């Protein structure tokens, strides 16, 4: 299905049931396997991906495709939370278990911490979450407050958005703004106006889930513009190529936002290959798929390029204990094509 750029606003959000996804299967003549050599040797940074919903197969595929680091924003997990402990355990998993899981595949895992806009509407719970949030935002590897912003654009959402902007200012952390799926243009404008009203430097704010209709205003006001390559409901990567052709690489970054819906953890390497194929300069590709995200979220002081690499987990383990954190014998790349499982 070729996405019509004018139709995106009618598409369902990625967290809603979508029969359309089944009704319009994607079809492309270009096979990823035929084009992946175009990005041979390139490294990528995915600044928005929800790994708690992904499998070890995804981690392996991501590493093989050149992804060396990622950011997992705190978000809604699909099932609404009913108590503070669910939030606490989720936040802890972002800096605990998921961080470890990622390290096993040589991918450096960062996160942003925040109360998402959907659950900001459960005010009694939101109040409690705001009390524990300061415990998490100062943690090692927390590169921002996010993803926060608007969903329905209710007064409660605005209240907690503003409170968290103040928190980010106090902690000297960048902000990752989730822009709404419905009434996106207004929601994006409103998010930026509020951020400026709170005195945030737009170069510390990443406005996410942009499209052709929102990007100009975001860039003109000095914010970072992130684009989510997500089948059916957000950007397609052919459209992304056109955006980069039109606006160039400055302050633009690409992410996958892969989560528990039909999404693609290889969105960035695939988009890079497509850009390469369409003749976009390598340096431009590097900026939008790697460097810009590091420059933006690196303002947190929490990103150290020395932590990236083929065997990050091994290096860290060596540093701290002189022995491997990997269970020896665990093959990181067992053959998926083999009938035999050893």
């Amino acid at each position: 299905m070729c996405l019509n750029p004018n139709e995106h606003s009618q598409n369902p959000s990625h967290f809603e049931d979508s029969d359309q996804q089944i009704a319009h299967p994607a079809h492309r003549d270009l096979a990823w396997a035929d084009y992946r050599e175009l990005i041979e040797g390139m490294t990528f940074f995915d600044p928005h991906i929800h790994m708690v919903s992904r499998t070890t197969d995804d981690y392996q595929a991501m590493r093989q495709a050149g992804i060396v680091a990622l950011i997992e924003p705190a978000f809604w997990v699909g099932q609404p939370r009913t108590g503070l402990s669910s939030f606490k355990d989720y936040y802890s998993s972002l800096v605990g278990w998921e961080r470890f899981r990622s390290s096993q595949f040589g991918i450096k895992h960062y996160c942003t911490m925040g109360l998402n806009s959907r659950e900001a509407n459960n005010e009694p719970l939101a109040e409690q979450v705001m009390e524990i949030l300061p415990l998490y935002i100062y943690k090692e590897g927390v590169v921002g407050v996010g993803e926060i912003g608007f969903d329905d654009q209710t007064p409660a959402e605005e209240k907690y958005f503003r409170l968290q902007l103040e928190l980010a200012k106090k902690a000297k952390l960048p902000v990752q703004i989730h822009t709404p799926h419905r009434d996106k243009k207004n929601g994006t404008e409103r998010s930026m106006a509020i951020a400026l009203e709170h005195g945030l430097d737009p170069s510390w704010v990443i406005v996410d889930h942009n499209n052709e209709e929102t990007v100009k205003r975001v860039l003109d006001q000095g914010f970072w513009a992130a684009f989510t390559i997500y089948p059916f409901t957000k950007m397609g990567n052919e459209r992304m190529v056109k955006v980069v052709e039109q606006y160039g690489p400055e302050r633009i970054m690409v992410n996958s936002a892969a989560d528990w819906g039909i999404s693609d953890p290889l969105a960035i390497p695939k988009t890079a290959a497509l850009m390469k194929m369409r003749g976009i300069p390598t340096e431009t590709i590097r900026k939008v798929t790697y460097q810009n995200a590091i420059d933006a979220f690196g303002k947190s002081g929490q990103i150290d390029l020395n932590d990236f690499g083929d065997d990050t987990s091994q290096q860290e383990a060596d540093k701290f204990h002189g022995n491997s954190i990997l269970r020896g014998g665990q093959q990181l790349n067992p053959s998926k094509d083999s009938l035999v499982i050893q």
Partner: protein
Amino acid sequence: MSTNVQQRLWTVIIANTLASESEWLESQCESTPLELMTAFVAAPRHLRKTIVLLDHTEIDLPEWPEGVELIVKDWSLTRLCRVWLLIQLEQMDPTSFSKNIETLFDTAEINELVALYSALPVLPYPEKWLFRATEAVRSNMGLVFDAIAIQNPYPAQHFSEAAWNQLVLKTIFNDKPIHLLYGLQKRQNATLALTLSDFAHERWAAGRSVAPEVWRLTSPFMNERLLADMATLLASKVIENQWAAALACADSSYPPAHTLLAQHPDLERQVRSGAISWTNIEFNDLNTYVPQP
């Protein structure tokens, strides 16, 4: 908490920090417990990512008090300073200390958990942290498990036999080197030795191997069943397995073990002469899950 523990840690900290870093640490002690807990969390923002060196400080360090010890080996500076901050937290507010520690555990990320578990041997009321310590053994996060298992005196000093045996078995299961467990010899027991035999049989049935040094835990408890394992090891094509069996038999006071060893005169000679010792088979890079050819 003993002033010696504090002084000892502070001596090492001073030798490893810049003035700005040690001043930041000292200033945290003049704050509130909540701010001190935030300092524990935010420590990496104020400290360099370096590894603590002990060489030039070892001479002047105050003695550890009886039954209390930390092995600060290959620690990051942050890990050491966080342990020190936890001791300050106890002094600042002894009544809320347990509650504060529980809060830190409940919200900790990986490196904070490492620091918390590293501090257990020097925290007051050590028996209070038994459940937490066994939770680290249950953890599948490698660094967290290592923090309680590797060169941490707490388990050997406070774990029940069952908890200790779980720690040893999980260390082996995780392909980590058991010689880095503190108090390994002192806590060996018959139940563990026999469980190791069962474990080895499962591994062998799966075509996998067992780290040879685990057999060092069997010699005081050698019996007919374990001796059969020794015979299996002596017949192995892997020389390290033969060494392990020879060493275990030689260390044992079970006469049939000596009879068995005598059937392998070359090995017996090497073991008796000290040409082979357990240190020869203390491997840190184990890989026992790969099927044997």
